[in-house]
């Protein structure tokens, strides 16, 4: 297991370095003048030169990459061209709140999706299976923004029950929980899109497991149905869910951009989107790297968890 862990961590570091190099190259392939994008159409050549000099944009690309690596190693990712703040500060303000939003919505999606998938597997091929699958796929197919606006129209505009968005003054994680009413709609919207995925993975996995010999044996031995489901089926059927949880992170962050824009929730997704539009390279690189690291970590944790849950995995690679 140790060797497996070391090897996986080594691979993860290599992937992160690859992400750094690739994103740096891609970002610098973007056409146009960064200084002009930030300073505006009427920026004078002198001001553009000052900007380039201030942020090292007039240096050769390898030197810029070295400076970027230096910033990353020092943990500050450089200074945002538009916000004038260290990128690490901008990310530190948003990441914990994103973690709360995405964590809560993912948890909600799991709480709904896993039992739902299990239910469908147990009623595989029946009308009940079709109704549940049809419902979640319909919600999954609907665009995030449409669901968000519909929920706002109903619960905020019409009934005045829920807040349509976060008050601008909330900047801390504690503040989010202090205003739970505002957290409901974004969490629900983000969860809706994940439930369909989780439930269908769970359904397929459970159907597969239900056909396994150990389930048949357990049934033949007269083990109670509830025990078969919780002790045998659930543990094995959850394995694919663990994997897709790690892989789903980029999708969840992408979905969060919409939620952040509509629900006035300034998080990582919106930060990344706005930085991409305004040529704010340090923020783009910082946000990409953080999302990349989170994805790699998610996969690493999933792999390790998989190894723990299924001894055949770690024995096979040892």
């Amino acid at each position, binding site marked *: 297991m140790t060797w497996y862990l070391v090897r996986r961590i080594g691979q993860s570091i290599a992937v992160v370095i690859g992400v750094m190099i690739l994103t740096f190259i891609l970002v610098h392939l973007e056409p146009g003048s960064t200084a002009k*994008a*930030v300073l505006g159409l009427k920026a004078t050549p002198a001001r553009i030169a000052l900007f380039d000099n201030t942020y090292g944009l007039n240096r050769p690309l390898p030197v810029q990459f070295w400076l970027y690596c230096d910033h990353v190693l020092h943990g500050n990712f450089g200074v945002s061209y538009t*916000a004038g703040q260290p990128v690490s*500060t901008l990310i530190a303000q948003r990441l914990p709140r994103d973690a709360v939003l995405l964590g809560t919505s993912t948890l909600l999606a799991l709480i709904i999706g896993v039992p739902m998938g299990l239910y469908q597997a147990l009623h595989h091929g029946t009308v009940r299976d079709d109704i549940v699958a049809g419902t979640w796929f319909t919600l999954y197919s609907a665009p995030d923004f449409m669901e968000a606006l519909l929920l706002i129209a109903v619960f905020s505009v019409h009934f005045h029950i829920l807040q349509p968005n976060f008050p601008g003054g909330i*900047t801390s994680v504690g503040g989010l929980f202090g205003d739970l009413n505002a957290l409901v709609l974004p969490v629900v919207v983000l969860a809706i899109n994940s439930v369909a995925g989780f439930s269908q993975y769970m359904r397929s996995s459970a159907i597969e497991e239900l056909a396994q010999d150990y389930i048949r044996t357990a049934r033949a031995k007269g083990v109670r149905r509830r025990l078969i489901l919780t002790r045998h089926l659930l543990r094995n059927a959850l394995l694919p869910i663990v994997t897709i949880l790690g892989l789903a992170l980029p999708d969840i962050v992408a979905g969060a951009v919409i939620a952040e824009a*509509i629900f*006035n929730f300034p998080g990582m997704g919106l930060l990344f989107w706005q930085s991409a539009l305004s040529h704010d390279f340090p923020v783009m690189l910082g946000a990409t790297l953080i999302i990349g690291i989170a994805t790699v970590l998610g996969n690493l944790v999933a792999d390790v968890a998989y190894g723990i849950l299924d001894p055949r995995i770690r024995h096979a690679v040892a």
Partner: protein
Amino acid sequence: MSRTHRLVTAAVAALALTTLAACGGGNVAKVGGGSSAPTGKPQKGGTVTIAEVGASPNDIFPLLTATNSNGYNADLTLGSWPWLVYSGDGANSVPNPQESLFSSLKWSDGDKVITIVLKPWKWSDGTPITSRDFTFVYNLLKTNYNDWFDYVDGLFPVDVASVATPNASTVVINLTRSYNPQFYEDNVLATIPLLPQHAWDKSSLTGQVGDYDQTASGAKAVWTFLQAQGADMATFATNPLWQVVDGPWKLSQFQSSGYYSWVPNTNYSGPDKPILSKVIWTPFTTDTAEMDTLRSNTTLDIAGVPLNDVRQIPALEAEGYSVAQVPNPGVAEILPNLYNPTAGPLLRLLYIRQAMEYLINRPQIVSKVFAGYADPGNGPVPVLYGKQFDSPLEKAGGPYPYSPAKAIALLKAHGWKVVPGGTDTCVRPGAAASDCGVGIKAGQPLTFQLLFGSGTASFDQQNAAFQSTEALGGVHITLKSEPFDTLVSTTGTCNAQSHPAAICDDWQLEQYGYNTYLMDPSGAGSFNTDANGNYGGYSSPEMDKLINATEYGSSTAAFFAYEDYAARQLPLLWLPNASFVFVYKKNLAGVTPLNPFSGLLNPEVWYYTTSGS
């Protein structure tokens, strides 16, 4: 010499109205007005919450560094450190003598010397505002102007030969050349604040205040210190430096999200002492989020309405809001690239530009795209504000009102086979007056690509309308959109000097929004040869002469001469320019008439007529 219009940018930011509607309704008052004007005895106190879309102020020192282009900082600082010359009197584009910091401002010596007498006002800590505060600003800028965002080549402080302070309330500025006083007051002195020398002239937080600004090294050190303090967002509301103000408001709370609040400066010396007890600026990530909040019966007291959402105005009125609009101090246009290898030879011909302008149905764009909330775009000066700047020609609709017949006649008279709905071709090449013109070959099609910023519904609609009506005269337009920042970053200036340059190949016509004006809607910086904002390479000695007359001459007739010449010459194709529409709580008085030059918002004159929130 274009001045960065931070103030107006902030106004746009404050009431972000970038998306516009194809249709709409609602009882919206016109220029500077409101749909209802609450009357009654002002009620002392109350809190007003203002929505700001995308707001992210990041610096509180009023003289921003050259690399900080964040227009929202003006919203943050303007209430605390107003300009020496206060821009806008109600909705009028004139200096406001009551709110300005000077009691008299006289020009002499052939308009080379300005004598300013300051009002006997005080800083918030009780110290009198004196001429030393002006020299403090001047000394800081004299040494650091290259690092000052609002510096414009050749203008203040470089154009100052010397500054004298004969007494504590008088400043005498000797300029290196004569200026048109109106231009200088409107566009230069109206961008300079006074700063408290007695509190800020130091180079460390714990250091003693001195006269450090009087040496170049000292001014550099003070500038560096103040810039560093001004960028420290964590201390905006607590740093004692920023508590010394001369405006009506003081910052009381600030969060990095862009949320902040003002409380009254109880020692404010000006005529309009705040009646409200608090003003809160709350940020929104998008105007969708802002509109949802408005519709949800929450505590927003004043907010912009995207023109896409004007259909919701009746619903907002039912929620207890009044509606108002204010014209945008700027000019919208399509920029022709006179040095594009393909389109340049065509666009350099005045008659082609004239025919294209005749084919723009501006009244239809105003009514259908902007729901009636727009300046008609008759020429370089918007006619909905600044009446003193509107020439009779512009007031009458400009030189090229919509007329496909005139456009077709013009093209035919210059040797084009006109194919309405198709593409015109040159059938009479040559340089004679009745030929197509220099550089135009036989059979050459009259076709252009229009590049514009994506993501704004009104631009999509406006440009589709432009494409459609140009086709009536056989001018074939193809449309291409890109993200706005990409558009800005890739647009290179193309002129006789830069030509041929690869970057000039990339665009033929461009529509990126509008140019903002300060109070004096001067063409300097946009239409004079080699001006920084003259990206399309327009050049005319006559235009240069007329613009110089508005900037350096003293004749009041000079402005109309420039304006009419520019309107006729079409250095840009004129388009309608959308106004700002916003809503405010019905029991909030004093919001209108709106001042387009002060960020639109002057909460010091607002008050609740019934129970405030």
